[in-house]
């Protein structure tokens, strides 16, 4: 439903977006990750037809944004960066305005506005000027505007920025609830959001697409992925360390001691899963492990690894 085809944007000599292509089918929530200034917003602006690309194009539900922009934009709901809204208007006035430009009128318009306000929970401030609203409410007013016409395509630039944890949870639940019959792109800095929400994530840095994977695949790229950590009494630690290091598929065992207990971290070769072998060894050795945990790998590490590498190469 969203097809991005070789989008490139140059500002003078500066290459902001470098030949990005991807397709987002219906039912997918794609997370756009990347450091500030990586080209996330620029890409979204081009997909929505706000910025003309230097080359390449995008199609929304088959409508080319450059040659058939009006139809393409009609398919999409867009929350621009910072959720801009007319500050002198009330949320209801603002939504009425947006609904009219979406071609909704009369009862259909009122129904759409009620639904969007319900979904984003802004009913209580419907008659307050937007400039007097808190950051969280402003963001949700912008979100309501994007959801107004129940679009097939949703493009949300940092939808949860400025929300408190409860509101973030609500917005994620809202997006999850709609995901089945829409194609959604969200950009975010918050990596936990990728786990909570996205079915797929891409990492962009310096305008280039560096990774395109499901969240669990991204986790698998993390340095500590599938490390198994055990907490053992100090007395058993040395035996265990030797035994575990001898297991097939184990690269090395790291040991740290504190308060009469030792923590062993078993690092597998090639980040393969070794938790079964380790638990088997614990059982047969008769060790009294206080806890055994498997490291999923932190997305932060993957993110830093990928984006900083490009930075150094450039």
């Amino acid at each position, binding site marked *: 439903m969203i097809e991005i085809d070789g989008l490139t944007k140059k500002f003078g000599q500066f290459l902001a977006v470098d030949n990005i292509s991807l397709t987002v089918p219906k039912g997918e929530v794609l997370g756009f990750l990347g450091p500030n200034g990586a080209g996330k917003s620029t890409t979204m*602006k081009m997909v929505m037809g*706000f910025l003309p690309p230097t080359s390449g194009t995008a199609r929304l539900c088959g409508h080319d944004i450059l040659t058939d922009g009006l139809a393409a934009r009609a398919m999409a709901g867009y929350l*621009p960066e910072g959720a801009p*809204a*007319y500050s002198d208007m009330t949320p209801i*006035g603002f939504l009425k305005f947006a609904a009219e*430009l979406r071609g909704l009128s009369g009862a259909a318009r009122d129904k759409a506005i009620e639904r969007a306000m319900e979904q984003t929970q802004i009913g209580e401030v419907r008659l307050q000027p937007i400039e007097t609203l808190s950051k969280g409410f402003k963001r949700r007013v912008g979100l309501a505007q994007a959801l107004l016409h129940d679009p097939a395509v949703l493009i949300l630039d940092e939808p949860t920025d400025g929300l408190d944890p409860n509101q973030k949870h609500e917005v994620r639940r809202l997006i999850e609830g709609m995901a089945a019959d829409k194609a959604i792109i969200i950009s975010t800095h918050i990596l936990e959001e990728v786990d909570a929400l996205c079915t797929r994530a891409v990492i962009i840095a310096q305008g280039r697409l560096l990774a395109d994977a499901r969240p669990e695949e991204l986790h698998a790229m993390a340095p500590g992925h599938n490390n198994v950590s055990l907490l053992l009494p100090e007395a058993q630690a040395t035996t265990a360390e030797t035994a575990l290091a001898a297991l097939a598929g184990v690269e090395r065992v790291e040991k740290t001691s504190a308060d009469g207990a030792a923590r062993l971290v078993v690092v597998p070769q090639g980040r393969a899963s070794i938790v079964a072998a380790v638990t088997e060894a614990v059982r047969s050795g008769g060790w009294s492990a206080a806890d055994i945990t498997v490291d999923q790998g932190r997305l932060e590490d993957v993110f830093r690894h990928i984006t900083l590498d490009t930075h150094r190469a450039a």
Partner: protein
Amino acid sequence: MNKTLAVFKRELAGYFATPVAYVFITIFLVLSGALTFMMGNLLGRGQADLQPFFNFHPWLYLVLIPAISMRLWAEERKSGTIEMLLTLPLTQCQAVVGKFLAAWAFTGIALALTFPVWITVNVLGGPDNGVIFAGYIGSLLMAGGYLAIGSALSAITRNQVIAFVLTAAVAFVFTVAGTPMVLDFFSGWAPAALVSTVASLSIMTHFQAIQTGVLDLRDLIYFVTLIALFLYANALILDLRKAD
């Protein structure tokens, strides 16, 4: 059409959302009244017409119209709403025209509120109301011309002060192009065709022609063309530099 209307309604309501609109209308009415009665000597000259009233309009508009037009696009840029507006399914033409018409309607309201001056001359004498009507039409058209210039220039920047100054400067050039001062400068050396071209570009010349009570098609075409040209430029500017 409905979309243009939606933009128009929002923009016009936007003018009245703050006290600025009322302050502006007050200033316009006080200034036009003061100029008409004190400097124009409406009562002392013993003629029942609104010549002194309309004579000051180009100069009044030169200062006041940029204040109306400066927010049209500069404000959208500054607050980022331009991105929201232009990614909604409406054409740039609809957005530009809707906003322009709102500013024009606002000016029309201010102009209509000068009706006590018209009542005054009707009470004191028997003016030719046809000429006065033509004067109002001419004044409205002239305001439209200035507003179109201001709308286009407001799309260049996110700073309303810059929009104001640029508009006042360009509007000044269009106003004085037909004055003897400018024409004398050209007539010494330039071919007659150029002199008459410069003169025909002048807002003042066309306004004065209408103000005499003659609604000539050429003057009408001049203002309509002026408005259309600058609104087209407005759309072009938006296309070239949407984000900033």
